[in-house]
């Protein structure tokens, strides 16, 4: 017991090691992997992200000009963000909040449409 005394005294007079979590949230680190978002204005539906995604969370539908993203399948590895050459995948350091039903995000690629119109 006497060996642990310094630790005990420090703990007695030191503050708590934990935070009042839902009220007080620590800011995420700059490079933390939180979640991904898509920038519809930049996406050209090249499919790099969908091919490299290890969890098959992104599907490309070229006929409908759509990118379908299943957030519940995403393992937040950010491989897609590195694969995207147009910076259309935005890596965010904020975590998603929990959800009751599995959401499905449908993104219409605008950059692709405009390019088609011009031609």
């Amino acid at each position, binding site marked *: 017991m006497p*060996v*642990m005394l*310094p*630790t005990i005294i420090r703990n007695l007079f030191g503050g708590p*090691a934990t935070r009042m979590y839902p009220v007080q949230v620590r800011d995420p*680190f700059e*490079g*933390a*992997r939180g979640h991904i978002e898509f920038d519809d204005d930049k996406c050209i539906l090249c499919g790099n992200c969908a091919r*490299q995604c*290890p*969890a098959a969370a992104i599907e490309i539908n070229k006929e409908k000009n759509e990118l379908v993203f299943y957030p519940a399948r995403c*393992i*937040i*590895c*950010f*491989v897609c963000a*590195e694969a995207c050459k147009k910076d259309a995948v935005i890596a965010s350091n904020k975590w998603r909040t929990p959800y009751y039903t599995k959401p499905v995000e449908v993104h219409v690629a605008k950059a692709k449409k405009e390019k088609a119109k011009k031609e």
Partner: protein
Amino acid sequence: MAPRTIAPFGPQHPVLPEPIQLKITYENEKVVDVVPALGYGHRGIEKACELNEYPKNIHLCERICGICSCMHGISYCEVVERLWPMEVPPRAKYLRTIWSEMSRTHSHLLWLGLLADALGFESMFMQFWRIREKVLDLLEMTCGSRVTQSVSVVGGVRRDIDDEQKKICIRTLQEVRQEAEALINVLATDPTVKARTVGKGVLTKEQAILLGNNGPHLRASGVKEDCRMLGMQAYGELGFEPVVETDGDCYARALVRARETLQAIDLQLEAFSKMPEGEIYVRPKGSPPANEAVYRCEQARGEVFYYAKGNGTRKLERLRVRTPTFANIPSLLVMLPGSELADVPIIVLSIDPCISCTER
């Protein structure tokens, strides 16, 4: 002859973080026979690795285990690099070493906390986990995630540690070392801890070798064997010397892990000071050739064995993972018979069982 009773130990038990069942036959509180029953966490990852393209397997292999996730990813990348073969830039090797040692630090701190918890030393458990949190914060800062780091890729690493992060890492690691040293001092000298662990579950040097044990479990029996001595990654340049204890009981295993925690922090500090500048990634060309390779790496729990066989396509022909606990479970069949029923949790915990690893 006293009547024999068969009691199930697990699959849900306070000392077991993961499910394994041991059917224990005992006679007057003395264990006579043990039969393990596995299969609660089998996910078929080896098969899944044959169906995926090889870069996607990194993320799959990282999910073999939660605690050693970083080292599973690195081991997979290293075995595929040996298939080619290709060389990784020196800075990437140092970064891999730093992250491996960081996960060893947090894994050993977790285990020391669990040991204290199994002994009923609750306050010690919380102290260890509090300082472990600092290491997890460092991992989140440098890798982006607390547990599944996903930093290693075939050909190098995905992230670099800049000077500012390096300063924070060094400062925090020195703090952690100081606090861990004080706590380990308590754990090593406390009479109640000694009463519960000294002389329990003894394995001699010969038994340990014949049972194929590995990791801290083997080194506690006096065998100087550590895969880091093979000099992979940057270990060859760091002057690494394995930690060895000779008693082979639960107390020796705790001491090995405690001293390795401090050693891991020293290795990280040394790696930070020696880390060269330069590239962190080289792009592998084409797909893995028809070749085979083996790789061994020292995880926190022991030696992990990776075997990969390529067939010239973008998928692997076969991937085999032998995790440390897979080889350490048979030693329970020797250690447990003859021990008191009350010592069973401590002895089971002393091999640092990781069942998700074992069953893959």
